[in-house]
């Protein structure tokens, strides 16, 4: 993605902008005329009842939705000013700059070390980094997610043997060497216990200085705690988008109010 010039011109105050985005799974329309603008270097949370399309929307931003059959999309998504549905866009490059963390931690069944370097190995020619540099990349990434002290003596261990919290941190760590601009998170804490949630939230909060983070969550407390902006979706549409506290305290729509006050969801 060519990103620098667009930002420099000041054209794009927004990292992601969608316009009239519609998406169908077969006959079922999961997203309806979604037009949204997401700001850089903050956490935007996506909330809404199950099936409202929030995960679908998230999965549009790196086009990972397309791995399923029968997905039709219309409209446009501009990331740093460039429509990601343009024919010239390389999926590989897009996904390099838009990282994703999944609901269920999914480290690859290889060593911790290899997990962190997986992306780098995909995107850089073989001999780009020396052994020492790779070691450094791994250490930096793992330090950034506060995992280094836990695993520094067992980098060769299989990553799937870590605890879920550690696995999720690793899933975050392996994105970092690629220097993504955006990190998508699909309920990153739902598989974790209370302590794990706290640690991941702390971590995400620290990362927001450097990355644009969009997080789908079912946990309204979490949305409130860590996000600066909040999007409420319902039945495939964006109902409300604004600063998190406003959405929670002075919602403009009845549906939002009912949802955030827990009257349905």
């Amino acid at each position, binding site marked *: 993605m060519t990103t620098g010039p667009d930002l420099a011109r000041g054209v794009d105050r927004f990292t992601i902008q969608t316009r009239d985005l519609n998406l169908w799974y077969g006959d079922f329309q999961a997203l309806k005329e979604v037009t949204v603008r997401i700001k850089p270097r903050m956490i935007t949370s996506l909330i809404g009842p199950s099936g409202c399309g929030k995960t679908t929307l998230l999965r549009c931003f790196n086009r*990972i939705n397309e*791995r399923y059959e029968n997905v039709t999309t219309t409209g446009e998504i501009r990331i740093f000013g460039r429509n990601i549905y343009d024919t010239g866009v390389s*999926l*590989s490059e897009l*996904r*390099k700059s838009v990282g994703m963390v*999944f609901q269920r931690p*999914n*480290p690859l069944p290889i060593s911790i070390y290899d997990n962190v370097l997986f992306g780098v190995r995909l995107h850089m020619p073989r001999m780009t980094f020396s052994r020492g540099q790779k070691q450094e990349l791994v250490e930096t990434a793992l330090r950034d997610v506060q995992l280094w002290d836990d695993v520094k003596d067992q980098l060769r261990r299989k990553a799937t043997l870590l605890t879920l919290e550690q696995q999720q941190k690793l899933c975050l760590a392996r994105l970092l060497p*690629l220097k993504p601009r955006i990190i998508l998170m699909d309920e990153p804490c739902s598989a974790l216990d209370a302590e794990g949630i706290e640690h991941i939230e702390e971590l995400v909060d620290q990362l927001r200085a450097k990355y644009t983070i969009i997080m789908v969550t079912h946990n309204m407390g979490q949305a409130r705690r860590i996000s600066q902006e909040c999007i409420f979706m319902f039945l495939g549409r964006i109902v409300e988008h604004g600063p998190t506290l406003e959405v929670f305290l002075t919602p403009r729509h009845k549906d939002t109010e009912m949802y955030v006050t827990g009257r349905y969801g």
Partner: protein
Amino acid sequence: MSADPVNTRDRPTLRRLAAVPAGCRGLTEPLIEWLIRICGWSAILFVAAIFFFVLREAAPMLFGKLDLVEFFTSTDWQPTSEVRQRYGILALLVGTLHVSLLAMAIAVPLGLGAAVYISEFSRGRTRETLKITIELLAAIPSIVWGFIAYMVLGPLIIRVTGAPVGVNLFNGSVVLALMSVPIIVSVGEDALKAVPDAYREAALAMGASRWEVIVRVLFPAAKNGLLAAVLLGIGRAIGETMAVLMATGHAVLIPRSLFDPVRTLTATIASELGEAVKGGDHYRVLFVIGLVLFAVTFVVNFVADVVVKGVGSERRA
């Protein structure tokens, strides 16, 4: 017996709960358990029994008259000579080895490729059709394969390559490969399908292409299953008798080219056991060959086991 007060207190309740089917449950449970246990142990029992049977028949020659050095190093196989019988199986061993290796060289890429295609690329109808067809392929009796080798592939080889005989090393390998492919495909596909989708998604989301997902994620993740697929294929290739008997030309010689006829260990036993005098030297030597086959498959399986367990344990387990 009266050690656990909790248990004694509970017992009447339990008995009452189980009251209705007590008679049947009380007996059937242990009975079924025993039946299952016997099923499990029977595998070991059968292998041991087969081994001892083959060993018993082979023993008088193996530990007596047979010159083992000559047995393994001579290509002179003259078991029915009036003057002096000679039992050298080198040519047969080499024949088996060549046919199996060549068959695997064809079958492994083909089989794994098909497994990858079915598991990762094909969808819906195509996938189902392919799977059913391949299962059908596995169900073709080996004699039919032999027939095809003899009547179809042989003449074709003569026509295309100008080889003097159509039944030869190449023919046998192709037929064995085709016979092993269905096993490799179905076991391989299972192995690939068992890889959690989350791994594919993780790699895709980092920008991997489908091909990179296969090579960097699926192959390492499914390596044990894929290895098992290949080994089952090898097992089939080494053990197959009828088709190779008809397809390889059955000439005792070390092949100099792809289109030389060869003979395998299995085909030798199959074709000669009927004529050998029971209890005679020839008869017993055929059983020694059986032991050799037994040993080969045992080693293959053992090595496979070590590889499968070993690769993971040291660095990554």
